[in-house]
């Protein structure tokens, strides 16, 4: 079946994917949706919308903070899906929801898949759902033409990398370092070695995420990967801005710089 993600991936011609992450509902739902439009104007190819959870155990302080603010603003899966639906009237950029498993369980897994598809969501990343536990959900995603993107880590064995390659729909998400989101590390030779290994083992495209904080690291990481995900760095910009319109401007500036830095 055709999908926005597949269309994007088949027409890349050497272009590297810029994938910003925004926490849905932070600083508020409207602003987070406006950020999607701004990202698209800056040359982002896809966006990740974070679905807040009270206990985000794979996330560092920035995304913990934005998740908490969004939850204090009464954000919910239902509101996020409604937001995506509204957004689809003005944008066709591929949208991936990234969130922990329990809010999906609470929403109802079957109903969630149907509603997500009808709202215009293209795919899912569930950081606390490794391939072994994904089966029932995986089939439901497939039925609803939603991509399930799985993560590989520097600690994944060769066998697991191959399994993840098989199950991950369309592309694979490579965690750059062992750690939580937002560490902002400088990537060196170790990362090169790891990414070269991934390039050899993966038949699908892969994007790099966790700790990508600057145009320089984005450039470095796209040497071997097919794109970068930037999350915590953006949340930090929004958090440090004086007000919402200032936040939009600063994010626009940052994403334009990153776009220019990568092919």
């Amino acid at each position, binding site marked *: 079946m055709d999908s926005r993600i597949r269309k994007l991936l088949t027409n890349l011609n050497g272009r590297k994917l810029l994938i910003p992450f925004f926490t849905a509902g932070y600083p508020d739902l409207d602003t987070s949706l406006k950020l999607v439009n701004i990202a698209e104007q800056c040359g982002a190819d896809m966006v990740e919308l974070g679905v807040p*959870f*009270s*206990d*985000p*155990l*794979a*996330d*560092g302080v920035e995304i*913990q903070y934005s998740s*908490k603010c969004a*939850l204090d603003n009464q954000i*919910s*899966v*239902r509101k996020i899906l409604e937001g995506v639906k509204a957004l689809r009237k003005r944008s066709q950029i591929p949208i991936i929801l990234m969130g*922990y*498993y*329990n*809010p*999906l*369980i*609470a*929403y109802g897994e079957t109903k969630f898949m149907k509603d997500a598809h009808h709202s215009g969501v293209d795919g899912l990343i569930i*950081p*606390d*759902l*490794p391939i*072994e*536990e994904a089966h029932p959900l995986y089939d439901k995603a497939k039925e609803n033409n939603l991509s399930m993107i*799985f*993560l*590989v*880590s*520097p*600690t*994944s*064995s060769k066998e*697991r990398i191959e399994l*993840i390659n098989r199950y991950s729909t369309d592309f694979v998400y490579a*965690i750059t370092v*062992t*750690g*939580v989101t937002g*560490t902002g590390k400088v990537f060196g030779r170790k990362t090169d070695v790891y990414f070269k290994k991934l390039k050899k083992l993966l038949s699908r495209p892969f994007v790099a995420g966790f700790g990508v904080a600057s145009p320089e690291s984005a450039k470095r990481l796209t040497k071997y990967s097919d794109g970068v995900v930037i999350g915590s760095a953006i949340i930090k910009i929004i958090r440090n801005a004086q007000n919402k319109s200032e936040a939009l401007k600063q994010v626009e500036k940052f994403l334009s710089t990153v776009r220019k830095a990568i092919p």
Partner: protein
Amino acid sequence: MKSGMENKDKKRPNKKGRFGLYGGRYVPETVIYALDELDKFYNKIKKDKKFIAEFNYYLKDYVGRPSPLYYAERFTSYLKGPRIYFKREDLNHTGAHKINNTIGQILLAKHMGKKRIIAETGAGQHGLATATVCARFGFPCVIYMGEIDLVRQKPNVEKMRLLGAQVIPVNSGSKTLKDATSQALRDWVTNVKDTFYIIGSVVGPHPYPMIVRDFQSVIGKETKKQCLKRWGKLPEAIIACVGGGSNAMGIFNAFVNDETVKLYGVEAAGLGLNTKFHAASITKGKPGVLHGAYSYLIYDKDGQIILPHSISAGLDYPGVGPEHSFFKDNGRIIYGSVTDKEAVNAFKLVSHLEGIIPALESSHALAYIIKKERQFKPNDNVVICLSGRGDKDMPIIEKWDQEYG
């Protein structure tokens, strides 16, 4: 038939770490390899005679096992009900059952060649037991503890520091055990290669619920022997408090296939089951995923974890071990609950009658028999797992008396 018997011959958990529907490994990809490594290592070493002897040696000479099975004579006469025995885990080194498990896990860490230990703690009992074994075996030790728990369990914090552990306050979320656990998991994701995470209860991703149960099952094995020696048969019932559920699984495990023995798990009803302020995950929760396992859990309609409440920091957790969820569904273990007030009353009563100050956690099990003694016959022998001592709870009781006394 609704009982644990249908699973008598099946392995618990199965290869995928499932207790029926529950358990599994809902964790970030980064730590999967460490769980695989631990699972493989544990399954090999648990049959190794040298390892078993080493574990038993420390349980005997360092922890002080076997712990006595004490006939609570005055408590029994007060109840005018069944004969009550206390399994005295409070007499263990560091004052609770927690050390049975930390001895086991530190030995695993040592044999696996790990360099650094991390742990989460609520009441501080597990933190203290971890800091203790780290001192004994010479490991650097980091303990994550919620800021609220840090204040209400101060004596334990000072002890941990004295033992050389670094106690890191956690100020995210509810600032209690659940957030300390999330923070410990974040540390583990970051330092997974050389760090061993000593989980304190039968919770978390596979193989932890199994490993912690196995190390704690010494409580039940001893109890069984002591009962048989004392009165020549098994007890009619066993009662234990359930937060994550490690002392309960520890004492129940040896009896789950003995159908005549009734098993009761007691949760914290806090200010009452019909309020928002309780920690009764099994009684009031639904299956969900937190901290790596699918199990009963307290969350709202949007799937967000509800902040639990219990006067006892060790029971103040929104989830419960997956094996308890399994035994809840098949009916082998009966789960009940008691309120803060009932627990405090039991705490005081047993202190007065027996000269034993029980932990507020264990006081929940004591309160249950006070409430339910009529369900038992006068000739019944009932064993209560006195999982820990209550010295650490004195500041809480003082505060309670100021408010309600």
